[in-house]
C-alpha cells in the first residue's frame, strides 16, 4: 500500500505552532496531553499546573479527559494527543459521543506515524479518518483543519465551552527537540489538583 499524497503539495501545519495557538490566552482551560510528542508540545507552549502530561497509559488520554470533563462541567477540558494514541483508544470516541458532554475537546496532532519509535506508518496515513469516526460517534463538531486560520477558529470554538469538539490536524512529521514536563506523575497529579481544587485536594 502506498501512503496517500493528497496533501503533499501544500505545506503541513507545524505541531508546536498549532498547540501554541490552541493554548494562547488559555484562561481556565484544563489540559491533558497524550504520551510522547503531544506532551512535549504542550510543555513547549508553557509548563502549567493545569496540564496533565501523560507518560504512559497509551490509549487513555481521551477517557482521562472525559472523566475530568464530567467532574468539572463548567471548565473546558482539552485533550491534545497523537494519531497512534487516539487509534489505540478508538472505542472511547463511541463512549464520549454517547456521553453528550459539552465541555470536552480532543485535538489529534496527526503525523500519520509513530514518531517516538522511528516514524513507522500509522493507519491515518492510509484511509482512516479520525474526524470521520468521531463524527459518526456523535461528536457533531468534528473537523480536520488544514490552515492556521482554521486552527485559530478551532481555538475559539474550544474556548467557547458550548459543545464537544474533535479535530484531526494533519501536521508535518518533523522531529523536534524534546521539551520534557516533570516526569513524576504523582507530582503532576498533586500539582493539578491543588491548582484546581485548592488545599481541600489534600484532605478529601
Amino acid at each position: 500500500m502506498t501512503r496517500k499524497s493528497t496533501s503533499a503539495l501544500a505545506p503541513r501545519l507545524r505541531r508546536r505552532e498549532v498547540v501554541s495557538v490552541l493554548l494562547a490566552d488559555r484562561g481556565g482551560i484544563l489540559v491533558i496531553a497524550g504520551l510522547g510528542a503531544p506532551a512535549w508540545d504542550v510543555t513547549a507552549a508553557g509548563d502549567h499546573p493545569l496540564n496533565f502530561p501523560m507518560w504512559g497509559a497509551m490509549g487513555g488520554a481521551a477517557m482521562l479527559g472525559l472523566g475530568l470533563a464530567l467532574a468539572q462541567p463548567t471548565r473546558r477540558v482539552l485533550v491534545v494527543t497523537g494519531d497512534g494514541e487516539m487509534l489505540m483508544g478508538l472505542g472511547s470516541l463511541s463512549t464520549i459521543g454517547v456521553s453528550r458532554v459539552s465541555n470536552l475537546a480532543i485535538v489529534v496532532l496527526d503525523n500519520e506515524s509513530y514518531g517516538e519509535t522511528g516514524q513507522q506508518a500509522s493507519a491515518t496515513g492510509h484511509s482512516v479518518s479520525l474526524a470521520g469516526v468521531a463524527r459518526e460517534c456523535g461528536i457533531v463538531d468534528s473537523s480536520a483543519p488544514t490552515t492556521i486560520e482554521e486552527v485559530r477558529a478551532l481555538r475559539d470554538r474550544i474556548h467557547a465551552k458550548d459543545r464537544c469538539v474533535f479535530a484531526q490536524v494533519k501536521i508535518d512529521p518533523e522531529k523536534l527537540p524534546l521539551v520534557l514536563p516533570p516526569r513524576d506523575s504523582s507530582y503532576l497529579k498533586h500539582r493539578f489538583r491543588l491548582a484546581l481544587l485548592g488545599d481541600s485536594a489534600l484532605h478529601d
Partner: protein
Amino acid sequence: MTGSFQERSARGSRSAAGGGDWPERVHSLLRAEAIDLIALVPDAGHAALIRHCEADPGMRMVRLSTEEEGVALLAGAWLGGIRGVLLMQSSGVGNCINMLSLPVMAQFPLLMLVTMRGDHGEFNPAQLPMGQASPRVLEAIGVLVKQVDATAQVEETVHGALRLAFNSCRPVAVLLGQKMLGAKDFRKLARGE
C-alpha cells in the same frame, strides 16, 4: 438470559438476612461514600447493582467500549475532584492491565468491582483463562485484591476496599466470587428455559 442467572444467583441467599440484597446494600454504600460516577461494561452478576445505580439520579453512568477506558475515566474524574467505581466481569480484567500503570504509578484511588467467571461451576471453557488469571494479573501489576465468596460479606468487603482505595490512593479490586453469584446454566438456556 440474565433472568435465569439471577434465579440461580439468588439460591440459598434470597433472604436479606443471608445477604441476598447485597446489590441494594452496595448501592446505598456507594451513595453514602459520595460515589458519583459508575463506569461499567455490563455483566449479569452486576445487573441488579446496575439497576439500582441507574435509578439513582445522583449517579452518572458511563458505559464503556472496553474496561480499560474506565481506568482512565476514573483517574480523570478524581483529578477533577469526584469519585467513581468501575464495574466489570473478570474477562475484562486483562483489558485493563497496561492502563492500570497510571493509577499504580501515580497513586490514583481506584475501586474495581469484578464479577468472577471461569471458576466455581463454570460451563464455558473460554471463561477459564482470564477468570483464573484475574487475581494474579491484578496483583502482578500492583492492584490490591480482595476476594468475597459469601453474599453476607459483600457490603463489608466493598466498604473496606473503598476506604482503602480512597484513603490510601491505591487501586483495589474486589472479586465477587462465582460461588456466591452462581454459574450461568447454558444447558437450561439452550433448552429455552
